[in-house]
């Protein structure tokens, strides 16, 4: 393996790092070398271990085995502050802002410029923030509170924060997921400038074209292990996908033909002020409809409103021709609706509760008699579905938090399939799970559709959407921007609509 700059040691490196959380081996002996003046891409599917790797670089996690090297010397980061002081700036996928503080303060928390007697120089803080925003070319007010910023604006504040301490190493975990085309271009300009000034950049993106546009090297992870680390030159997107997925695409996306029946879910002019506007679509029995769009485009919010977790301000929803009252998940369930939510850990599962209790959370009617629970019925319902979905567990009484991400997702699916839904909404069904389980989930969705279930699949994983969906809806800034048939839907057409470049938005 040739180094980009063999004469100098890498600015920051990992050597043979492993890290586990309970039963989950997030990283297994991974090495990574970040050189000054080089943009390095980290590729891998959801759940491949990228986030854990980043948190190790950021000092949030300490490796179980292996070392972190700074300028060739082993270091131990005792916390995020250590990593920051060593010049490592990290932009996380989820913005971590302080809603009560101003945007300027958010950028400089813990390291505000000071005047005499150690007092914070508020004017300098404001000035520096304004300079950063000018450099990024964004129209944010330094004095504005962070509360109420859109996700894209929050992401920009995070980027400004990273820029503010002239980092030697800049780590970006999907910074572009919520950005539009022009914002991405501006961000790339800033990153290139930083790189030319000698910063090392670690870049993570699901959009492979961005990897090729920005980076010189790419390291691929799969299921927590290092697969390859190589120059980008000479690689094709297909090569990269093969390394990430590790198997044939047909096997990963087993799409069966299903007979498309009558309309199961009908959404008409659904609006929630400031979140999404005038959304109308149908999902038919036997159909898998993909719902694509950038993060923050309002996809999950539509799903939550349809299911009744959030209220809607206008429009209507019908299930099998019967109108659904707003804001009542229990009635939506009674009508045959099921929602596998986006955030598995916070919304899909009660993490501290057992597998059995989680699966049975949706089935009190069938496991109780005269208002008293029947232990036998509870147990058999849980065992039945856990076995059907091949959940790997030691005991049903174990907390779901002890399971791996893939098995957790199977428990969520079991919980909902046990209600025998006519309409299944899945929000990011394969985020954070290993490739094997991912294929299983796809096979399951495909099978459900073949059995006549109407499936609405929200996903940021474009290959997944394109391979699995019979029809693709695309949202852009709270509106439905395109409704594409399987034949029309390509990476280009979907991305064009998602970033507002499509014409159909009118």
């Amino acid at each position, binding site marked *: 393996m040739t180094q980009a700059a063999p004469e100098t040691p890498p600015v920051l490196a990992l050597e043979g790092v492993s890290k586990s959380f309970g039963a989950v081996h997030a990283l297994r002996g991974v090495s990574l070398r970040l050189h000054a003046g080089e943009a390095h891409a980290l590729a891998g599917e959801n759940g491949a271990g990228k986030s854990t790797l980043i948190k190790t670089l950021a000092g949030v996690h300490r490796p179980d085995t292996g070392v972190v090297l700074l300028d060739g010397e082993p270091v131990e980061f005792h916390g995020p502050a250590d990593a920051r002081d060593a010049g490592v700036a990290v932009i996380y996928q989820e913005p971590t802002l302080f809603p009560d503080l101003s945007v300027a*303060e958010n950028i400089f928390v813990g390291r505000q410029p000071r005047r005499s007697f150690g007092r914070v120089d508020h004017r300098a803080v404001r000035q520096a923030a304004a300079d950063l925003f000018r450099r990024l070319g964004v129209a944010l007010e330094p004095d504005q*509170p962070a509360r109420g910023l859109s996700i894209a604006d929050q992401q920009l504040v995070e980027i400004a924060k990273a820029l503010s301490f002239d980092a030697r190493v800049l780590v970006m975990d999907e910074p572009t997921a919520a950005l539009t085309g022009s914002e991405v271009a501006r961000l790339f300009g800033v990153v290139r400038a930083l790189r030319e000034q000698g910063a090392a950049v670690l870049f993570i993106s699901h959009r492979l074209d961005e990897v090729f546009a920005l980076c010189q090297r790419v390291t691929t992870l799969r299921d927590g292990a290092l697969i390859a680390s190589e120059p980008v030159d000479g690689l094709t997107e297909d090569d990269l996908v093969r390394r990430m997925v590790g198997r044939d695409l047909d096997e990963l996306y087993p799409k069966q033909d299903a007979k498309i029946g009558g309309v199961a879910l009908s959404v008409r002019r659904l609006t929630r002020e400031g979140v999404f506007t005038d959304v109308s679509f149908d999902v038919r029995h036997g159909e898998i409809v993909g719902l694509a769009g950038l993060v923050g485009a309002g996809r999950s919010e539509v799903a939550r409103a349809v299911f009744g977790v959030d209220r809607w301000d206008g429009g209507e929803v019908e299930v099998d021709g019967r109108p659904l009252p707003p804001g009542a998940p229990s009635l939506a369930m009674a009508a045959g609706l099921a929602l596998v939510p986006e955030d598995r850990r916070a919304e899909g599962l009660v993490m501290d509760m057992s597998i059995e209790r989680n699966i049975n959370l949706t089935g009190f009617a069938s496991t109780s008699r005269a208002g008293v629970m029947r232990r036998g019925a509870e147990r058999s319902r849980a065992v039945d579905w856990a076995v059907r979905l091949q959940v790997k567990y030691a005991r049903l009484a174990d907390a779901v938090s002890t399971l791996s991400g893939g098995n957790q997702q199977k428990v969520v699916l079991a919980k909902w399939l046990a209600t025998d839904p006519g309409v299944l909404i899945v929000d990011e069904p394969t985020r954070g799970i290993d490739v094997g389980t991912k294929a299983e989930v796809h096979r399951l969705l495909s099978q459900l559709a073949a059995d006549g279930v109407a499936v609405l699949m929200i996903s940021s994983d474009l290959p997944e959407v394109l391979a699995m969906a019979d029809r693709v809806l695309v949202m852009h800034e709270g509106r439905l921007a395109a409704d594409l048939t399987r034949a029309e839907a390509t990476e280009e057409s979907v991305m064009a609509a998602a970033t507002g470049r499509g014409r159909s938005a009118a």
Partner: protein
Amino acid sequence: MTVTTDQEHRARPAGGSGSRKLLDTVLKVRELAIGAVLVVMLLATQLDNSDFLSQQGIKDLLLNATILVLVAVGQAMVVITRNVDLSVGSTLGISAFAAGDYLSGGGNPLVAVVLAVLLGAALGAVNGLLVSLGRVPALVVTLGTLYIIRGLDSVWVGSRQITASQLPSGFAGFGHDGLSVIPYLALLTAAVLVCVAYYLRAYRGGRDLYALGSNPEAARLAGVPVRRRILTAYVVCGALAGLAGALYLARFGNVDSGTGTGYELTVVSAVVVGGVAFTGGSGTVYGAALGALLLTSINSVLPSIGVSSVWVQAIDGFLLLLAIAVDRVVALRVADLLRKRAAETRSARHA
């Protein structure tokens, strides 16, 4: 209050810093509203009873408020970090007795005050360590230490009592006298208030308290020394409760094992009425001080307009409920407005 804020804002053209101004307005209005209620209440009472704001009347108002203001300032620091300290009443009691015990043995007044402050700080440190290292809910832990400190106090004090006659006359004088209408105690309290407010506003440590109350996880990622800051807040809170204990001794000259019992609820009420949110990250110590002043003033106002003192507790309770309910409604409206404005500016920018 809510309505006027919203209308004011709609009348203004949507400028770039509009939302910040909106928030500023709301926050200022919050403290202004308390101030206005206070002034109106005092003036109305004065009209009803012209002796109310006599020189002695003003002095009494200030004296009554000083001790609560001190403890409320400390409590505000803790509440800003999304925690709470229920043991302040017990801390105040035991510090007051410690200072009194030392003075009645012929000690130096200044040393006595320092002693009370140190004792309070030590007890605050215990709370802080339990909360920050043990990572246990602050409410339960400080409820426990409320019992423990009160119990230890009772065991130590027994049926003894410190009375004014046992104290050096200079010390008692310090508790009553002042520069014209302003008592020395009020001056000392004001000085502490200004110092704490300045620390919270102009020092990294102070800003960190707001940051970690606003979003603890983000604070950790930003490298804020979370445990040390929480510990600091508790130590200051304890120290101020200790100082309040010494001032209590100077003012009333009378301390026994029951001193400060039930004080924690009044303090929490004052802080919350003053606009320091239980959810952390917002509010100022000036607000907390105003809240304390309001609560103690109600206690003085009711008797002088001929209302029975049995109403005091009910009014305190309803005031607290009103304050948190109004805060919540305002916060929901502001969040709604900010969300819509963000959506507007974003689509405008990309149009």
